[in-house]
């Protein structure tokens, strides 16, 4: 049986008249078990492989996709409902041969692998149609964890603008989707839109030979999510306003707009399936001020599975006249505020760069270099160094590199939301 624990990091002391309360709620899951086995309902997995014409240029891409799909199939545990689809102008069943899901066993695993080895490329990239087809498959699966892996190498063409948005609207809440772009001809924003809507990750696999390992890790991770569906429930007091609810670790994801109001004071956010892992949430609430000496709950943050509260964290406000207390900034809140800013300046900096606004790009990416350095985010520092030359990291001064591999820029973009965890004092 999975267990959850919640821990709150905040400075609860507010000065007289202050209204804004910040807290980081760290939620840790343990004993999650295996997907589809602890909850009593089987999990469902769909692998969607882009087989548009471009996957043959070079042919190494389609070959890598075949191998990666096989490795992913090998990771799916017996008893899981699964399917493999090839995506081009339409979505086509690879295995099972007719629309539907098969139950994983030695036999179906072998048959699916054989079917995957016959994948051929040709046609356009119509991701909206693929998502719609996957949604239809998942709707036939029993309730439980539903997860897809989507691989593409190109940008959407061959379907009307708006097709993707409409498809995502139908898919939202039906399944989670991890997205991977192979090569550098795909569009980060498209895959990020899908991953964000469907509670998944997005990443670049620049070299085809790295695809296998990535698919293996991704599917293994999906199989370790024994908690099929959890929601973050946030209560805030009467007269208050939830300013934002943001996942800040392991990656930044602003949940605020995904709130569902379930009662006048309570909203819920989907968080998808959980494995044994920790996720941190930064919650900000504006509360009506109370006189010095008063204590008030600013947010009750709960993790809910099947309508059962599994863990609870309390974000509090205590009004005080003691400036030693009220001026302190909680290290976790400060760190994650910085990490969210870091993701924001990188994305805006790269957008400015691709729009030809080099001055803005230089300023923003310089700010990013400083934020990444100051927070000890080494991965982002490394990725930034492939796009800019750092002149003075303390001052945040950089120069844009003249020659930048497009895949390096895309890696920086897709991974900008990855955060480092704050070093916790013992």
């Amino acid at each position: 049986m999975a267990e959850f624990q919640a821990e709150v990091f905040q400075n609860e002391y507010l000065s007289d008249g202050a209204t804004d309360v910040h807290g980081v709620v760290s939620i840790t899951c343990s004993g999650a078990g295996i997907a589809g086995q602890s909850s009593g309902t089987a999990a469902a997995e769909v692998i969607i492989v882009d087989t548009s014409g471009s996957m043959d240029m070079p042919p190494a891409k389609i070959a890598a996709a075949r191998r990666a799909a096989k490795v992913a199939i090998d990771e799916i545990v017996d008893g899981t409902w699964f399917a493999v689809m090839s995506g081009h102008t339409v979505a086509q069943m690879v295995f099972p041969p007719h629309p539907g899901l098969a139950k994983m066993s030695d036999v179906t695993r072998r048959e699916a692998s054989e079917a995957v080895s016959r994948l051929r490329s040709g046609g356009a990239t119509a991701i909206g149609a693929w998502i719609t087809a996957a949604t239809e498959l998942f709707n036939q699966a029993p309730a439980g964890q539903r997860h897809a892996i989507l691989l593409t190498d190109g940008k959407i063409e061959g379907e009307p603008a708006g097709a993707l948005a409409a498809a995502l609207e139908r898919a939202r809440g039906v399944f989670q989707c991890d997205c991977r772009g192979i090569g550098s001809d795909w569009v980060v924003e498209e895959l990020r839109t899908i991953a964000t809507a469907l509670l998944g990750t997005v990443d670049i696999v620049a070299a085809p030979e790295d695809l296998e390992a990535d698919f293996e890790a991704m599917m293994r991770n999906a199989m370790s999510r024994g908690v099929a569906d959890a929601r973050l429930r946030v209560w805030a007091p009467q007269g208050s306003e939830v300013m934002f609810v943001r996942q800040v670790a392991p990656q930044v994801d602003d949940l605020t707009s995904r709130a569902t109001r379930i009662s006048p004071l309570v909203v819920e956010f989907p968080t998808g399936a959980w494995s044994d892992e920790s996720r941190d949430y930064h919650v900000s609430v504006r509360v009506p001020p109370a006189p010095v000496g008063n204590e008030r709950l600013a947010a009750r943050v709960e993790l809910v599975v099947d309508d059962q509260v599994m863990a609870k964290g309390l974000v509090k406000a205590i009004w005080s006249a003691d400036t030693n207390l009220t001026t302190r900034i909680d290290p976790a809140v400060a760190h994650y505020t910085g990490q969210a800013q870091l993701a924001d300046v990188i994305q805006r900096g790269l957008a400015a760069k691709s729009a030809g606004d080099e001055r803005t790009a230089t300023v923003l990416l310089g700010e990013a270099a400083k934020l990444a350095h100051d927070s000890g985010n080494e991965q982002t520092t490394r990725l930034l160094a492939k796009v800019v030359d750092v002149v003075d990291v303390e001052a945040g001064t950089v120069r844009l590199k003249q020659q930048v591999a497009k895949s390096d820029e895309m890696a920086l973009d897709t991974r900008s939301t990855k955060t480092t965890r704050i070093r916790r004092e013992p």
Partner: protein
Amino acid sequence: MTCSSCGAESLAGDTFCEACGADLAPPSSPSLLDVPPASPIVDDPTADGDPTADVPRTHLLTPTSGTDGVDLDDEFGVDVFAPCAACGAAVADDGFCTQCGHKARTRREHWTETHGDHVGAVCDRGITHARNEDAMATAVTDAGLVVLVVCDGVTTAPDSDRASLAASRAARDVLAANPPVEGAFAARLSAWERTLHLACRAANGEAVAVARALGDPPEPPSCTFVAAVVDRDLVATAWCGDSRAYWLPDGAPGEQLSLDHSLGTEMIRRGMARSDAEADATSHTITRWLGADSLDPTPEFRALAVDRPGWLLVCSDGLWNEASEPERLQALMADAAAAGATSPTALAESLAAFANERGGRDNITVALARCVPQLP
């Protein structure tokens, strides 16, 4: 205790102020005191060295009425919360209001006791203190005896809230176990003096027992003590420390029955004006208290023959810091009554609210008994 140089709060046992380093007055400096030794109770056969010897273990008695359905022992186990004080809504089991989010008061932080239409009391955390170290215990016996006990835990000694609650209940139970005393007034007075001494001893025994149970910490929990009994036309009170008893008769000047065991009293005794002494930062340093580290846990006694209707008020310094003069207290009660507070509990709540409006800088306990003298 407050630093006389800078006004910062300091710990009772501290020798120097944490804020400015000034020398703090010691809690009981013999050179400053001229307190006569408490008179020994010559006719008390139990007056030997053991503070708990032969004292009836009356804390086994449970109050049959008056705590308004409150089991304060919950405080030491599962927290039980009153409805939200800010908006009246229900309180979640995590201790915060389900609607406005205000931190709920536990029963230990605010409770009332009511007996019939003539006895009411409130014990309140106040505003700035984190815990309610005040405690009270009240009773009206079947024979009509009224018992009011207030103990004010010493904030700077940890767990004084436990000591004060145990002590006040022990004293109440000793007192409530007695029947009204018959006989000549002087004999009744002597009998109550003895009983109040025993009650104080039982209270001290409980305060010491709390320290023992905690493994004798270096700062043992400690508290003040004041108890009052109304036996028809006789009001008898005993105290140890600076919690007070007042007699506030209708249409006549009131009087403070107790005399604080504090440096403030010494200042007044040496000729300082009362208002000046009470404003002095060191005046609150108490010179007698109950607990394992008490040098002199014996009470002083005072009795009064009541010849007209009035109020007996027993309170902690959380109230009298804001209104010390008897006439001020009488005026406050008249204002509260005019505003519709007619029951003793409502009057007590009004006085506590008054102290909270003035900043609630200390725990506040107010116990009131309406006295209409009947001859025995």
